[in-house]
């Protein structure tokens, strides 16, 4: 039973409550993130706001970004997504699910010797475009791919 998907679909605009939860969850005492957690970005509910928070409001589409993900995912709670960026000097990759209540799913800062490649599994509430937002050489680029979410049958 796909509980995560159900609850995502049931999510109403409880932004106030969720923001409070975020604030409560982010116990400030003694935690040093290597990178500051992008509260504004993770709390944005619209794709445009997420892009703005990432600094990617005027990002251009790039064919040098490949998104590997299923056309159809059997289980919206576990959707595998991999992003490969061939852009030189790739510094950051973000995965954004347009139709999720909070579209920004993850941001990966590529330091040192890591290649422009990340693979993760994300929750999707419904069929949606999955965006990859890549920062390379100080500029922003995007790519996107639609992933359809289904409900399984037996078992």
């Amino acid at each position, binding site marked *: *039973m*796909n*509980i995560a998907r159900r609850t995502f679909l049931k999510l109403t605009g409880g932004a106030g409550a969720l923001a409070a939860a975020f604030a409560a969850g982010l116990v400030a005492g003694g935690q040093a993130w290597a990178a500051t957690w992008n509260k504004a970005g993770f709390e944005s509910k619209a794709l445009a706001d997420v892009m703005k928070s990432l600094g990617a409001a005027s990002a251009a589409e790039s064919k040098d970004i490949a998104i*590997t*993900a*299923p*056309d*159809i*995912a*059997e*289980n919206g*709670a*576990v*959707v*595998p997504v*991999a992003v490969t960026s061939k852009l030189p000097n790739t510094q950051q990759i973000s995965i954004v699910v347009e139709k999720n209540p909070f579209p920004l799913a993850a941001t990966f800062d590529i330091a040192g010797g890591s290649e422009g490649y990340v*693979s993760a*599994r994300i929750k999707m509430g419904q069929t949606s475009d999955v965006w990859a937002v890549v920062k390379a050489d100080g500029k922003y680029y995007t790519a996107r791919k*639609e992933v*359809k979410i*289904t*409900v*399984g*049958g*037996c*078992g």
Partner: protein
Amino acid sequence: MPNTRGGLAAVLLAFLAAWGAVPVLAQSDDPLGVGRKMLAEDNPGELWIERGKALFHQKRGPKGVSLEQCDFGQGPGKLEGATVRLPRYFPDTNKVQDLESRLLSCMVQLQGFNRDDIVKRAISPAGSDGSDVEALALYITSRSNGMKMDVSLSHQKEYDMYKAGEYLFYRRSGQTDFACVQCHGEANRRIRLQDLIHMTDKKGVQEVVSTWPAYRGAHFTVRTMQWRLYDCFWQMRLPELKYASDTSIALITYLHYQGNGAVIGVPGFKR
């Protein structure tokens, strides 16, 4: 998953066309395959193997003893290659037992656990991190990874169990008048978008017997063959299949024997 490409692809293409979408040609041949492959390559179920191993060696239960002296058919504590010969007849219990019922016996006899208590928790609730039995069953089965299913029916009781399982597989029962064979007796069958493994085909049944216990994606935990059969019975609206019952062991004996030769590879990854 079996090759259901023809039928499934046709349905999905119609499905996608109805949505007004143009299917990506590269994936249209096996639309669910890309996702399944990506998930199976890195299976969270593997984390349960370590957990099962720790539980196996840990002194537990009222008697404060580990499972190291448990005999799964090859002698006390010998795990390598043990599950490929299960179910089998055990002289000490005078019964044919599958992995989980044998595990139950050892947890009761060696460790002093109460049988009813184990049965109550063996199948963990959805959303939990799994039971001790599920982790143990996975660990013990993983010790046969790479080996071939090799069930023998040399003992009369083993043969009787096999025949009983065969009978159950084909017998129509209950309010839906279903038998296992109706869903699993033909190629290219499915319920909504779930493939139904063709289990009267050698390759199909081999795939079944070599991939349990498995990580059930939607449950976020490891599930066993006993759970799988219990859930099938529920799907068929049959009376509850009791954990480690003779009915369950009969069906497992039948399926494992039919799947002889299958190369064990656990944990499997299921939706």
